[in-house]
């Protein structure tokens, strides 16, 4: 408990400093920094196009940053490719899932980390392990031997999440993992995130759902237009503050809506009071 209360007192397992990434004319990330400690859940929030997925892909080795330092377990590293990220112990659920439609569930779960017995694929062991992983997520998947193309959007997302648990990751990054999930599956994913934290893993969670973020995160990092906009400890942050940081103004469209609601409600009460009198 006390460990969670002081997450930054410990050496972060993953630490980025001054990361820049540019796509043609778009500066997607400008001087971004982020830290994740072991046993800590960091929520990464921001508007559409804020650069969240780009940051995740830089950490996952999909994109190379133009400049900036990545430290993993206290050592400066360059993540040259997704294989290297995996070897370091960084597992990622990408927003666009990145599954192979023509392969079955088992093949997708273990792609790049196949279990071998005597040089051949150990299908039985992988299938067994696949069922175990899927059960921990309460996955509703009829068979692990059907191609991914035959699954629903939420089932695919569950498979993508289960993928991140294969192997022995130290940091798990989830880019909008619950966007397509049902109520029960969303709860399971949130439970899973808490279990990952208990097991001492660092978690980066991207979500547009503030309730989910506030339910599981220890710290919230806000990106706006590719820059660090704000950082909150979850107990300190109110939803209004978060929204203000995300949109970059206190008189933003979300606050205006809430305000309108409140005044509408007050007027209605006033009228009620008037008719009473």
């Amino acid at each position, binding site marked *: 408990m006390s460990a969670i209360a002081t997450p930054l007192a410990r050496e972060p397992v993953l630490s980025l400093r001054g990361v820049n990434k540019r796509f043609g004319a778009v500066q997607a990330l400008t001087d971004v920094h982020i830290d994740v400690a072991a046993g800590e859940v960091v929520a990464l929030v921001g508007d559409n196009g804020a650069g969240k997925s780009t940051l995740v892909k830089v950490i*996952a080795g*999909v994109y190379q940053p133009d400049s900036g330092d990545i430290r993993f377990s206290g050592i400066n590293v360059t993540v040259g*490719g*997704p*294989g290297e*990220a*995996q*070897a370091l112990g960084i597992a*990622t659920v*990408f927003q666009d*899932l*990145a*599954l*192979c*439609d*023509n*392969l079955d569930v088992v*093949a997708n779960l273990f*792609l*790049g*980390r*196949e279990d*071998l017995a005597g*040089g*051949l*694929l150990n299908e*039985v*062991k992988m*299938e*067994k392990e696949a*069922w175990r992983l899927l059960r921990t997520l309460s996955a*509703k*998947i*009829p*068979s*692990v*031997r*059907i*191609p*991914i*193309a*035959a*699954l629903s959007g939420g089932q695919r997302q569950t498979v993508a999440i289960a*993928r991140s648990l294969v192997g022995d990751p130290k940091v798990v990054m989830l880019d909008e993992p619950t966007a397509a999930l049902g109520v029960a599956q969303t709860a399971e994913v949130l439970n899973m995130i808490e279990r990952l934290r208990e097991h001492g893993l660092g978690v980066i969670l991207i979500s547009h759902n503030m309730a989910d973020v506030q339910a599981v995160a220890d710290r919230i990092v806000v990106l706006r237009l590719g820059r660090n906009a704000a950082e909150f400890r979850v107990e300190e942050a109110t939803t209004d503050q978060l929204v203000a940081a995300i949109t970059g103004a206190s008189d933003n469209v979300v606050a205006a809506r809430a305000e309108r609601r409140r005044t509408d409600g007050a007027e209605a009460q006033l009228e009620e009071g008037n008719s009473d009198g």
Partner: protein
Amino acid sequence: MADTEQTHTVADDLADERLIRVQGLSGLVHMTWNRLRSGELGSLPVVVGLVVISILFYAMEPRFLSSRSLVSITQFAAPIGIIALGIVLVLLLGQIDLSVGSVSGLAAAGMAVLVVRHGYSELVGIMAALTVGLLIGAVYAVLHNRLGVPSFVFSLAGLLGFQGLLLYVLGRQGTINLPSGSFLVEFTRFKFVTGLTSYVLVLAVVAVFLATQLWGIRTRTRAGLSAPGQGAVLIKVGLLAVGLLVLTWYVNLDRGWSYLWLFFVFLVVVMDLLLRRTRWGRHVFAVGGNEEAARRSGVKVGRIYFTVFASCSMLAAVGGLLAAGLQTSVSQASGTTDTNLTAIAAAVIGGTSLFGGRGSAYSAMLGIIVLQAIQSGLNMVGVDSSVRFMVTGGVLLLAVAIDSVSRRARSSSGRG
């Protein structure tokens, strides 16, 4: 409590209540029918096609199904079949190699020049030919991986370039005859497995197949997963045994199975094993299905392209060497356009998708048998080769149409 008791008796992979249970033979038939309807055709169209072709030619010319004819069909199908095996690999990645014919001709010419004109041993000639194949594949991989040139373009360049190189290597005379005692000629033309050896071979194959099936069932049940029933497996093995024994008896009426054909079948079986049971094969399918997903999963995509292009060109070289042995010579016509297109057509006709990520090593075998059967059938009925080209074109078109239609059926029934 009673509930949990019950789920324990059900295998892990059958626990979902929406799974339609397969019960008995009628269930199996039903499931197969559903698979077919949803576009999972596999090798069914080509098998049906082969039966139709056989009946047609048999009606016109009963010699078509004689044991002599079967022996030579299989023998002459093998070299291009081996080239088609390489094409299957390239197609699995969603790529194409148009130059396999030229590469096969060039490799054979290189071997012939070294052996006949310069007096090197045949082993050196063969190694040189394989090296040529490997180098060409490596260059293709670099063009693809580093420069991003589409395979259609660089292999088209290869088609022309290597054909030119073939002419250059052969020089003025244009034809080189292989010496009569040559290993390649002996191996491809005069070696047959017949008599007791052939039956022992069949029994060994059946025994290995049975053993792997039973072992598979055992490991699955031990791990608490569902497994096919012993009965179904025994029926399958029985059918295989009877089929192979009858065929062997029939070809033994003539010369028996040619070494050349058995070598091809061996390559197909090994390739099938590599594709379905090894990490490399899994990665080939993954890259063919979704390259970006494969890359993000840590698959070394560049290496997969390298191994596939290199294997394809090397198999083309092997096919070229064997074709040269079978014709006892290398000429300016070796591995021309005909070879290219026949090899590609065979892979597609056999059921490997042009769209990548779907297919099997066996499609090279099935496809080349169909094409070779058409060729020798038309020869027997005494039709001109112009007709053969047209018929082959028609069959290819039909195969691609079936591929496209079944792809559409798959996407509408959720089988990708």
